[in-house]
Each structure stands twice: as structure tokens, then as C-alpha cells.
């Protein structure tokens, strides 16, 4: 048995391709000491100049547009007037401009939809103006004199716009998603990227990594030959992708729905324009995070309607609020917990606050009525059949007719037959399922190997869920990033999964892989994967059968 890799971190595929280089962690916090701006107007013109210079030097059209938009915010007379008022009332200028920016950000967020996504940009500009007043300039990207993979918590537009793709050959961020700036710019520059990689911070600087932007995997200190193997796979994959389009199906015409994971209205619009069959996971948290008061019914209806109308007749599966004490949801009033992953989170937040879930369901039903669509709805962190039943009642009473649950808690997978009696479908969240099944914290780089979705124990739980689905004649899907790995997708189909939801960029490769195999082959590779004793072995034997 050959060791496939030493450590594999899992992120969301953001920009396809494979990059091999030393990793460099970049803090991005403003550093260089410069002379502080004299006042708000001076800060504004300095930041506008700086952003204007970066816009002119931007390596892509998108980068330039983003920077020009930021420059407009930095020059905004109302923002500056609001900050000045606060200074007059006694606030320190840096604090005053941050607070003023936060105020506008809140306003934009309350409008929902596309505008809410500009809120983060306004906050960014507030930070830049404050930094200018404090004599701090924004840091530049590292220039070590050789190619490297940039690893960071997140990248602001102004950072990535100056990026030289011959030096920064790949990007990994801890945060971000399919439509964040990092993703968009990486794709424009044609460099691989993985985002939302929770363990990115554990990549020690200088270590060689192979970044697989097509699957979101980051191989740290990879075994010899890995980069070549992946490059060959990329080449073959590109050939196949060119040949296959349309709905997902195996070579012998078993339908496997290929869907998108989305988390914002921007994501929705982008995904809707792609060759895929709908949304398998619409994360609704973005509406609720960082809010001091619950988003109103109208705002929710507006936002859901935006997403639903983008997809028309195509399926959209909406997940109700998935928050916990580790997420910033002040209005929920959750108490601090020692183990947030094991506490009041997901559907459980409806125990202290049933009204929030009720309102969300009503808003979704109203949005459905307004757009003439029929969204599916599912609840996260469902642990027992009783919870599934109670949720189904709530959702159906609110007027939603297709109700399901996420399977991420092992107890739910083990009791799937009973669980699925009450609902119409289940979607397996492999990321959290692996966390709970292998008792390994998703945020901790040290235990990353245990979180590998190829872990045979996880495959066993998927099989148990599918057996429950089969017993109750209910559909089972996967919406964790496991679905984005073409080889693993084949295994999942062999286990009984019939819909796969992933970052849109990953869909073509999965579609092409499925089109190359018949169902019997999928069933066979699922068997051999479950017979393996380690995740690495499972991956290796399946790869051997499908690509050999």
C-alpha cells in the first residue's frame, strides 16, 4: 500500500488546476508605518489614490472594477459626513469612520439580496480609512523571489488585484466561497485556488504543497509523484469535460442530479448560469450572521425570492439557519458553550427560539408563492426521528410541501430508516458527518487526516443512510464537498446516492467521470472502498480501478 499523501487539508474548490510550490502564510494586516493622515478628508484622498493606483495596475478587468468600486466608497461624501459628525460628538476619528462604515453596512444588509453582499466592501473601506488615520498602510504580498502558494485567512480585493500569477501560482484561504473575490480573481488569472479551508492556518510556511483547485484539496509535504499524477488527471479530465454536458447520468443512463452549493444571492446568480440542475444546498446563514436584530420577514422573502427566481423550474434545496454559539448571531442570544459543535446549533436553536425558525419557514413559503416555484426545505443537525417529524410538521404547516433533513449526526445515519419515514428526502453533510463520526474537530489541522471523507467509517454511514432511503423509497443526496471529488462521487453513487451538490466549478469533472462508468462499476468501487482499512487505501484502490 503506497502512502498517497502525508496530510491532506480540505477546502472548497474555487479555481481548477494543480499547483506545486512552497506555501507562504500571509497575515494581510496593515503594517508599514507611514505618516498618519491629517484628517478624514486627507485619509479619504489617500485611500482613493492608493486604490486608484492599484486599479490601474490591476492584472484583470474584474480586479480593476472591484477596486474602482471601493474607491467610490472611500470618496463617498455621506460616509465622510457621518464620520465627521461622530468626531464632532467626541469620537476618535479612526473609530468614527469605522462606526460610520458599519452603519452603512448594516443598512445595505437590511436590503438583502445583492446589496447585502456589498456590505463587507463598505466595512473594508472603513478599515482602510481608519488605518490611514492611524499611520498604517495596507501590507503588500510577499516577494520571496520564487513561486509560491499564497495561504491566508482571507484576501481583500485590493490584495489580489496586484497579484502576479507567475509568482503566486495558487491560493488557499481559510474563509471565502464560490463568489468571493479570491475565487473570481483566481479564475480570471487562471491559477488554482481552494477556499473555506478551515485548517489553512496549520500549513507551516515553507512546506511544499500540491494545491488541487479542482477538488479543493491541499496536499502538504506530498509524496513524490503526486503532482505528476494530478497533472495527468487534469489533462484527461479536461478532455472528458469537453465531451460531456447536460444532466448527470452514468454510462448506462442512471440519473444523478448535479447541483450547486450556494451561500449568497451572488452565488445563486452565478450558479444559475452554469450547466447544472439546480441547488442542492442553499445556506441561509448569510442573512443572520453579525445581525443585532433578526432579519425581518420582508427582507427574508426578498432574498429567498431572488434566489428562487434565478433557478426557475430547477430544484432549489434550502437549508434553515445553521448557527451555533461559535457563530456570530447576537440576536439569538445563545449562551457561550465549551463545545459549540456539540451544543445548541442547527435545528436545536429552535429550542430556545422557535419563532426564528417559524419566521424563516413562512418567509420561504411566501417567496415560493411569489415566484411560482416549489423549493425543497431541510433542517441541519437533525439527531433523531422525532426531531425530523416535528420539523416536517412545522414546514408543511407553513405551506412547504417537500421537506427533508440533513444527515450529519451519526445517530441520524444509524436510524435512517426511522428518520426517513417522516420526511421526503435526506441530504448527507459529509464534512460534519466525518467530524462527528471520527470525533475530530473540523478546525484543527492536527486531526485533518481523520476528516477525510474517504474514511471507510464515513462511507459505512453513507451506506446506512442510503439503506434507510431505500427502505422508505426516499431520495438521498450528498451536499458535502465529498461530492466534488469525481472518484468519490462514483463511490457515493455506488452506495445509492442519486444527487450530488458541490461548488459549481466542480460539476463538469464529476459529470464527465460519471458518464464514463456504468452503475455496476459504481457499486463495485463502493464495495472495494468500504473494504479498505484506511482512507488513503480506499482512495488508492478506487483510483486504480477507474483510471488505471
Amino acid at each position: 500500500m503506497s502512502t498517497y499523501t502525508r496530510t491532506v487539508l480540505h477546502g472548497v474548490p474555487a479555481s481548477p488546476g494543480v499547483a506545486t510550490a512552497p506555501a507562504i502564510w500571509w497575515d494581510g494586516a496593515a503594517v508599514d508605518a507611514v505618516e498618519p493622515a491629517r484628517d478624514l478628508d486627507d485619509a479619504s484622498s489617500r485611500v482613493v489614490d492608493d486604490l486608484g493606483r492599484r486599479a490601474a495596475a490591476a492584472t484583470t478587468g474584474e480586479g480593476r472594477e472591484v477596486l474602482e468600486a471601493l474607491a467610490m466608497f472611500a470618496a463617498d461624501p455621506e460616509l465622510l459626513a457621518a464620520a465627521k459628525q461622530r468626531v464632532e460628538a467626541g469620537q476618535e476619528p479612526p473609530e468614527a469612520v469605522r462606526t460610520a462604515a458599519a452603519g452603512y453596512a448594516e443598512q445595505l444588509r437590511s436590503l438583502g439580496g445583492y446589496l447585502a453582499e456589498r456590505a463587507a466592501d463598505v466595512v473594508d473601506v472603513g478599515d482602510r480609512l481608519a488605518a490611514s488615520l492611524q499611520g498604517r498602510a495596507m501590507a503588500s504580498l510577499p516577494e520571496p523571489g520564487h513561486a509560491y502558494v499564497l495561504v491566508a485567512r482571507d484576501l481583500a480585493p485590493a490584495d489580489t488585484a496586484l497579484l502576479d500569477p507567475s509568482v503566486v501560482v495558487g491560493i488557499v484561504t481559510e474563509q471565502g466561497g464560490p463568489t468571493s473575490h479570491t475565487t473570481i480573481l483566481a479564475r480570471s488569472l487562471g491559477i488554482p485556488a481552494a477556499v473555506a479551508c478551515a485548517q489553512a492556518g496549520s500549513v507551516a510556511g515553507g512546506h511544499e504543497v500540491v494545491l488541487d483547485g479542482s477538488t479543493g484539496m491541499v496536499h502538504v509535504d506530498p509524496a513524490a509523484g503526486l503532482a505528476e499524477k494530478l497533472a495527468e488527471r487534469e489533462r484527461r479530465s479536461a478532455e472528458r469535460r469537453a465531451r460531456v454536458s447536460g444532466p448527470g447520468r452514468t454510462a448506462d443512463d442512471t440519473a444523478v442530479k448535479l447541483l450547486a452549493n450556494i451561500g449568497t444571492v451572488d452565488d445563486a446568480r452565478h450558479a444559475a448560469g452554469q450547466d447544472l440542475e439546480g441547488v442542492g444546498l442553499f445556506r441561509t446563514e448569510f442573512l443572520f450572521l453579525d445581525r443585532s436584530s433578526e432579519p425581518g420577514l420582508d427582507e427574508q422573502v426578498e432574498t429567498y425570492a431572488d434566489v428562487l427566481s434565478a433557478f426557475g423550474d430547477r430544484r432549489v434545496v434550502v437549508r434553515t439557519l445553521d448557527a451555533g454559539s461559535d457563530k456570530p448571531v447576537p440576536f439569538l442570544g445563545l449562551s457561550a458553550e465549551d463545545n459549540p459543535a456539540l451544543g445548541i446549533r442547527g435545528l436545536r436553536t429552535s429550542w430556545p427560539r422557535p419563532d426564528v425558525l417559524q419566521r424563516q419557514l413562512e418567509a420561504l413559503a411566501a417567496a415560493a408563492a411569489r415566484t411560482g416555484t416549489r423549493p425543497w426545505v431541510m433542517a441541519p443537525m437533525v439527531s433523531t426521528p422525532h426531531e425530523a417529524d416535528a420539523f416536517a410538521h412545522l414546514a408543511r404547516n407553513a405551506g412547504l410541501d417537500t421537506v427533508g433533513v440533513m444527515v450529519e449526526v451519526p445517530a441520524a445515519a444509524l436510524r435512517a430508516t426511522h428518520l426517513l419515514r417522516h420526511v421526503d428526502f435526506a441530504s448527507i453533510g459529509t464534512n460534519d458527518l466525518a467530524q462527528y463520526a471520527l470525533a475530530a474537530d473540523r478546525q484543527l489541522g492536527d486531526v485533518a487526516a481523520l476528516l477525510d471523507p474517504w474514511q471507510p467509517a464515513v462511507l459505512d454511514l453513507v451506506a446506512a443512510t442510503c439503506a434507510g432511503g431505500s427502505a422508505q423509497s426516499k431520495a438521498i443526496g450528498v451536499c458535502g464537498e465529498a461530492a466534488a471529488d469525481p472518484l468519490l462521487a462514483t463511490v457515493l453513487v455506488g452506495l445509492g446516492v442519486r444527487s450530488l451538490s458541490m461548488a459549481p466549478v466542480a460539476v463538469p469533472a464529476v459529470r464527465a467521470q460519471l458518464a464514463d462508468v456504468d452503475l455496476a462499476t459504481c457499486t463495485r468501487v463502493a464495495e472495494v472502498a468500504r473494504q479498505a482499512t484506511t482512507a488513503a487505501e480506499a482512495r488508492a484502490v478506487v483510483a486504480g480501478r477507474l483510471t488505471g
Partner: protein
Amino acid sequence: MPSRTATIASSVGLHARPAKLFVDLAGKAARDGVTVTVARPGAEPANAASILAVLSLGVKHGETVELTAEGEGAEAALDALVEELAVDRDAETVG
């Protein structure tokens, strides 16, 4: 104070690029001494030279807004702005 009504032609509404172009023009007018406000009929006027104020209006495609200008050259400024709003800028934007 001269004022004009205009209908938003851009299919994305008064957001993104259309808003940027509108605010750029209003900003130019402001530098030439003409202050312009934009409002939904009967509602609070917003500073047309402020991208944040304009975006916060959340004006959609097909809606009508009232533009009011003050200062020397107000009429000409209003003409330019009304003309700008009448163009479907969204049809020009790339993907």
C-alpha cells in the same frame, strides 16, 4: 429649484455599474457647484453624489425617481442625469 423625473432603464436597477455611472456624473456636477438629490416620489431625498445613499435607495428597474438640483448649471446637470438613467447600462456589462 429645478427638478425632473426619470425612469430607471437598466435591468439590474440603480445598482452596480449603472449606479456608479450615475453617481460619477452627480459627483462631477457637485464639483462644479451643483448639488443634486434623488428620491422616490414623495420620499426623503438622498445625495446623488453618494454611492452609498444611492445604493441604499434600492431602486429597481422600471421605477421612477425624482431628481432635484440646485446651483448654477442645475438644468444642464439634470438633463445629463436623466439621460444617463434612460440608458440600459446593464445591457452593456460583461457577464
